[in-house]
């Protein structure tokens, strides 16, 4: 299985590529007043309004730096009522992929209620990589900003360039 690797602070995290719709460069967001701090704002993805969560704020408590490697990862988020939504995740150094099996992941041995989206851990030559569980990611109130999206694997991918 292929996983996208990104960094938050000095730590490395990964997402399974099968859940990723597309990776886009960072754009200017529409700010949402009174939203939680980790909600960076809204942006238009091919005619769809997508909420963006800054994983750096969510996990490390500080916003992502405006680097070229800081990108928006569009993922297929399935809510509890089995409805598909597109969710934008902002993360730094989203430039590498890693290929590994499901068995390689090991449970961390500790589960924190406030961070249930952090899952099992795999390690390579550079160190440990923690898996982010998309289904546990957004808090409940984020759903109000989401639009229903029909996730189709291997959909036309020729017009992702800006």
């Amino acid at each position: 299985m292929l996983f996208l690797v990104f960094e938050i602070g000095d730590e490395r995290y990964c997402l399974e590529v099968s859940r990723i719709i597309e990776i886009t460069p960072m754009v200017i967001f529409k700010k949402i007043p009174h939203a939680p701090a980790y909600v960076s704002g809204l942006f238009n993805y091919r005619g769809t309004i997508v909420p963006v969560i800054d994983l750096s704020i969510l996990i490390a408590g500080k916003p992502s730096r405006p680097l070229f490697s800081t990108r928006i990862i569009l993922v297929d988020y399935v809510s509890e009522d089995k409805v598909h939504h597109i969710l934008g995740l902002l993360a730094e150094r989203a430039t590498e992929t890693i290929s590994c099996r499901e068995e390689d992941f090991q449970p961390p041995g500790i589960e924190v209620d406030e961070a249930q989206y952090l899952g099992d851990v795999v390690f390579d030559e550079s160190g440990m990589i923690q898996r982010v569980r998309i289904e546990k990611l957004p808090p409940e109130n984020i759903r109000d900003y989401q639009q229903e999206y029909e996730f189709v694997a291997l959909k036309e991918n020729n017009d992702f360039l800006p």
Partner: protein
Amino acid sequence: MKKYFNRLKILHKIIISGLIFALPICILLYYMISGFNNNIDFARMEIWGSRLLTPLTRLAELIPEHQLLVRLYLQGDTFAQEKIDVSTKKIDESFAILIAEGKKYEKVLRIDEKSLKAREMEKIHYSKVYKIWQELNKNCKNNSTVQNDIEHEMVLQPIQALIKRLGDTSNMVLDPDLDSLYMMDVAIVTMPKTLGKLSEFLLFGESVIFKGFRSREDIVKFSVFAAMMEEDLERVRQNIATALREDKNYYGSSNSLQANMPPSLSQYESFVTPFLVVLKRFANDPDSRISVAEFLEPARTLLEAGAQLREVSLQELQILLSKRIDNFSNKKLIALSLSLIALILAAIIILIISRGITRSLGKVIDIAGEIAAGNLQQAVESLETMGKSGFNLSNKAEHHTGQNKNEIVQLFQAISTMTSGLDALLTQVRKSGIQVTSSSTQIAAAARQLEATVAEQASSINEVSATSKEISATAQEFAKTMNRVAEMSSRAADLASASMTSLSDINATMKILLENTTESFGKLRTVDEKMGNITQVITTITKVANQINLLSLNAAIEAEKAGEYGTGFSVVAREIRRLADQTAVAAIDIEVLIIETQGAMKEGMSAVETYTDQTMTSTEKIAEISVDLLMAIEHTQELAPQFESANQGMQVQSQSAAQISEAMGQLNESAKQTRDSLVEFKGVTEQLNEAVRDLQNEVARFSISS
């Protein structure tokens, strides 16, 4: 002597005083009694003398009578023989009485042979006279008339001398009382003399009558004798009248004297008168004839009457004398008995007084002993019981009795007052003692505290002294420092003037620096601009690399989604991504470098800008500072003299501090002395405490009524 007298008891003293008083009284009594005895002896002597005189005067009458009778007998008168015998018998009787009485009283009346011989009068002693009489009586009828006359004269003369001697020795002529004196005169002097003369005259008259004629001389003698008889009678009469008159003034009138004397006198007078008639007739009428019998008969009766009068008066004299003796004896007895009674009474009174005093004093001594032993309570009780048992001790009684109270009662009152006073005093003393003890304890405590305080003070003074020494030292040090500071300030002033020149140099240098800085700022800006150009190129490269990376990533995602159909594509995508990555990394590195250089440049530019500003500010400030510094230098130069005066002040302060130090030393000495005094004071207080304790112990001996 005085000590010995003081050692005696009161009773003995009183007895001794009584004896001393009794001694002169006894002596006076003795003299009084001996005076009485003298008077009695005087009277007795008179009585005894009169007793002896009775036979003697009788003899003085009888001897001439006998002589006359003998003469008549010798002339032939036959009747005379019987009469002579009678007369002789009378004379013998008288002599017997004389001898009997004489033996009794001759020594007292000093008519014994020894006394008479001392006066060459031994011939008149009655025994010798009696011998002459016996011879006369034997020879009288045989002798001649002349011889008889001589011999009778020899008997009569010593008798008369003896009468005279007795009159002297028996004090009769010294009789003190008028009545007895006059009676004595009658009985012993006048009447015997008259009768003696009469007897002699009878002899003469008989011889004249017997002769038968009368010479002129005889007639004169007769008339003279008659006148003498009258004179004697008158004297006797007057004497007896005086005696009778004065009798009542001496030991009361004697009844026998008043009764017996007048008849005897009148009888004698009645016989004197006829005899005087005979005598006068015989003297005046030369022719008248008178027989011997006619002449002798009235004479003899007269003689008898005279003798009787003499006898009576002698008896009365003796009665008077014995009355006087009785009187004096009674007086003596009364005086003696009165004196004895008085002495006994005095002795009894002395005993009673001394017993009373001794008993009362004994009680007082007991009470005083109890007080001395400290049993005040008991003493008070004793006094109270005594007050109940008769002594008026209460103050009310004292007021009522006033001055009449007796010394013993006064003494008891005084002791009572003293006891109560002592009681109060002791109570007061005990209280005072306790107070004094507590006070002295407090004083001692205060003294101890004071001592401690003084010690603290001394140490404080020491500290102050040390401190002031330190101050002095510090002040001296400070003065030195000030000196140094003054020097340094003057040096600083020099340095400041030097630094002023340096400052102007700095100013110039700063200006040059400012110009250089501005120049380098311009150069830096040029570099910055060029760096911007490089950055743009690199950014472009980076963007391209980034795009490629992103593309390869999305390609990889799509290849993954395509499954095993996309495997080849995924490899291509990976290769592209690697290429892009290498480019991007290089570009990113350059970008980062440039960005950092740019940041550094910007920072350096701003720093240079700031520096330029600061340099300018500094230049301005240095200019200001140089002005300030100039002023400061002036001030510093001005300061030097001020430092001098401060230095002097500091020296003065140092000296003052030294003086303070000395004064503190003296004060310390005083404090030490004070502490010593306090130690002494403490000792004295302890002594006081002890004294008070002793006093309390002394007082505790007394049990006082609380």
